[in-house]
């Protein structure tokens, strides 16, 4: 092995690139601190990986009291190295990393990757150590990846950086991968190698003491070698910045770069502590769906789905629509593919008469010329080619799926080559093409041909359908109508006068209603009675039927405490209900804790929805809409968005409900006032945005009347809490 080589690597890009991140991904010289001579250990293998990847720059092992490592001259300390060092890779034990990093600062190192463990993941002492190394680096402007990470890989041919202890350098490709789990990284690398999937950049984030996924997203957005960005995330701390970065990058119409993510774990909404329905529901996976939906991040349920989709987005044109053509040599798989596609939301394209005529001419009489096209089991490459020519030329086809099963006469490789040739010939149609050669052993060479030509391949047609649908979802998000945040003329001062006068905790119902009233919500007039006579008088003024509701700062769950009586139709009923309610409540609370009994007109029956707001420490206020009533937590038919929502989001939230058909009118029922729900959502978004102190808010139910007749707030709870340092 030769001595350290002099640099011919790409120089640091000037201008917009952050110098520290550039030093991480495109260093011209690297020092590895803590290298040992013991093969099979991280400190040894990581250095050998750098050499084996043929890194296009100088490498210096820092190995105290060693003369050389793997044939390369070693140094006792990084400050002994005579040349400049761009990047340091620390593999010393955690306890000595501070000393090592201080010397890196002295040396003028621009960035460091700290592989070592022994930081926040081991407890308080480790967390303190991590804060210290972060401070050491920050003082000099050094950027850090890690600690406690697998490392960083850059496959660009003029860099060839494998600063990791992964088993091997991956192939070059257009996909970048960021992961918070180091263990997952090695599994993903091996998985991708098995599928001939290459990477542009590969980063194990570790503890994210400094550089996090947002910094890397911004860097990768400007990286011409990266077409798609994949992320595995567990903890998200800068929620809003993540959303903004994702929207900017995935939504850049001039150069869109899709982002796909797997989110492990749940948000930090503290479901266990939340008393409100919204809070209890907000810790579910639906929250992340809402966040990713708004940000244009394609949420994947598995590594398989992520890479299946990534291949399609990275190497095929973005589909213009959801109409697919299926070409198959086997009926059964064609049916499976159809079912899977339609279940996902894709549509079988309806061929033009010209296409059908062309297929009839080229294919045997027994072939099916409708969609899915069945070229029959004895098909060879000529029939596949004819079918593909026809569908590529059809304007009503947006995407193409080719299925092959290996019969004895199926010339798999020739068919694969024909597919590749046609893909090339029809590139200008910008229709994505994917394949599913079903099998394993006999189809393997054919699959390799497809992969060499960057045609995505899937073992099962269902996986192809998943990927194609994800691509359609992304394309629709990218080309969505971009609306603004819609606000209403409201009485902000009136709402503030209520909210500012109340300490942290629940507002009593009249206060909560006053806040909603100030923001134009449809609330019903009320009066507070402190005697049965007052209650009857109020009922007479409003007109029957009426409702009685206890008003008490000590009673939050009124129904459970029998503090609500509905549908009282006469003075006698009101008087009796008032007396009974008071008597019952005084068993549980003191008389002085009952402010009064609210009297109001009974709201006519309608459909019930729940609207809510929950302040998440990571994402800020989340708005929720769901099918309401007391069973909301059982049905969990809910949808989330981060506040503030844009005009089009309100309608989307309604349409996302599984039970939206109930609102649209079932079995002859009149449709409900959906515009009223949308307006309520936008007003609630505005209210939450204006008052960060609102920690939880439930309107459950909002009673929705038939179209044109509006909605009414039947119950509301608002909890205030001052924001902590990490909120919003």
């Amino acid at each position, binding site marked *: 092995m030769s001595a350290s080589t002099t640099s011919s690597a790409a120089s640091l890009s000037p201008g917009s690139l952050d110098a520290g991140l550039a030093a991480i991904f495109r260093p011209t010289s690297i020092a590895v601190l803590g290298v040992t001579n013991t093969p099979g*250990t991280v400190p040894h293998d990581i250095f050998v990986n750098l050499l084996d990847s043929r890194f296009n720059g100088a490498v210096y092992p820092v190995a105290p009291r060693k003369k050389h490592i793997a044939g390369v001259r070693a140094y*006792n300390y990084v400050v002994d190295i005579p040349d400049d060092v761009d990047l340091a890779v620390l593999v010393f*034990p955690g306890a*000595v990393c501070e000393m*090592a990093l201080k010397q890196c600062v002295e040396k003028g190192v621009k960035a460091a990757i700290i592989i070592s463990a022994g930081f926040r993941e081991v407890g308080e002492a480790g967390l303190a150590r991590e804060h210290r190394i972060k401070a050491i680096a920050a003082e000099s402007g050094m950027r850090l990846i890690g600690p406690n990470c697998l490392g960083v890989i850059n496959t660009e041919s003029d860099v060839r950086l494998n600063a990791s202890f992964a088993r091997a350098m991956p192939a070059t490709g257009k996909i970048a991968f960021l992961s918070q789990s180091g263990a997952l990284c090695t599994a993903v690398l091996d998985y991708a190698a098995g599928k001939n999937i290459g990477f542009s950049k590969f980063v194990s984030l570790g503890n994210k003491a400094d550089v996090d996924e947002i910094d890397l997203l911004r860097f990768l957005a400007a990286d011409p070698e990266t077409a798609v960005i994949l992320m595995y995330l567990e903890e998200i701390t800068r929620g809003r910045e993540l959303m903004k970065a994702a929207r900017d990058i995935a939504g850049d119409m001039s150069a869109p770069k899709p982002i796909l993510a797997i989110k492990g774990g749940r948000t930090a909404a503290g479901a266990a502590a939340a008393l409100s329905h919204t809070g209890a529901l907000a810790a579910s996976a639906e929250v992340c769906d809402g966040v990713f939906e708004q940000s244009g991040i394609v949420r994947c349920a598995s590594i398989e789905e992520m890479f299946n989709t990534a291949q399609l987005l990275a190497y095929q044109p973005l589909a213009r629509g959801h109409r697919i053509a299926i070409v198959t040599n086997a009926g059964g798989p064609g049916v499976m593919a159809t079912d899977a596609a339609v279940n996902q939301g894709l549509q079988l394209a309806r061929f033009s008469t010209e296409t059908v005529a062309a297929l009839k001419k080229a294919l045997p009489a027994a072939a099916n010329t409708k969609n899915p096209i069945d070229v029959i089991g004895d098909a060879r490459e000529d029939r596949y080619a004819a079918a593909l020519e026809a569908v590529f030329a059809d304007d009503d086809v947006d995407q193409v799926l080719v299925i092959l099963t290996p019969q004895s006469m199926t010339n798999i490789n020739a068919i694969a080559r024909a597919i590749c040739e046609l893909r090339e010939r029809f590139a200008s149609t910008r229709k994505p093409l994917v394949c599913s050669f079903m099998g394993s052993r006999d189809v393997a060479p054919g699959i390799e041909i497809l992969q060499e030509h960057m045609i995505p391949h899937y073992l099962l047609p269902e996986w192809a359908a998943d990927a194609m649908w994800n691509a359609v979802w992304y394309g629709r998000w990218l080309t969505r109508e971009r609306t603004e945040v819609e606000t209403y003329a409201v009485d902000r001062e009136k709402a503030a006068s209520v909210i500012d006068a109340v300490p942290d905790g629940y507002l009593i119902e009249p206060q909560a209603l006053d806040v909603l009233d100030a923001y134009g919500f449809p609330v019903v007039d009320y009066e507070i009675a402190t005697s049965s006579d007052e209650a009857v008088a109020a009922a007479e003024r409003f007109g029957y039927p009426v409702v009685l509701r206890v008003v008490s700062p000590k009673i939050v769950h009124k129904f459970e405490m029998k503090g609500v009586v509905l549908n009282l139709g006469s003075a006698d009923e009101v008087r009796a209900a008032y007396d009974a309610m008071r008597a019952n409540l005084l068993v549980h609370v003191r008389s002085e804790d009952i402010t009064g009994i609210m009297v109001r007109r009974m709201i006519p029956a309608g459909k019930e929805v729940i609207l809510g707001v929950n302040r998440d420490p990571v994402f800020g206020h989340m708005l929720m809409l769901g099918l309401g009533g007391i069973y909301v937590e059982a049905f969990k038919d809910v949808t989330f968005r981060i506040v503030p929502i844009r005009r089009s989001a309100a309608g989307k939230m309604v349409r996302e409900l599984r039970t939206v058909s109930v609102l649209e009118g079932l079995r002859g029922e009149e449709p409900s006032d959906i515009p009223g729900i949308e307006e309520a959502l936008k007003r609630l978004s505005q209210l939450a945005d204006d008052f960060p102190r609102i920690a939880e808010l439930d309107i459950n139910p909002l009673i929705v009347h038939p179209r044109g007749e509006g909605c009414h707030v039947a119950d509301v709870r608002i909890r205030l809490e001052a924001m902590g340092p990490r909120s919003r």
Partner: protein
Amino acid sequence: MADKQILERVIKVVANVLGLDPEEIEPQANFVFDLGAESSQSVELVMAFEAEFDVDMDQEQALAVQTVEGAADFIATQLNS
């Protein structure tokens, strides 16, 4: 500061286990950062100290010691107790 004799004996053990010249070993030297001790050698050092000084040491506490003089202090404490 530990007994000078203990320090000298510690230096001799360290030199022997790590294959270094005792003259090059400073009392303030960090076993890993300055003397290049690998993790297996750290365990070897603890065992060698135990043999040299005929003491039983708590391994976790012993491995937390970072420097040569720190080791001498630790051993002195073990001997006194």
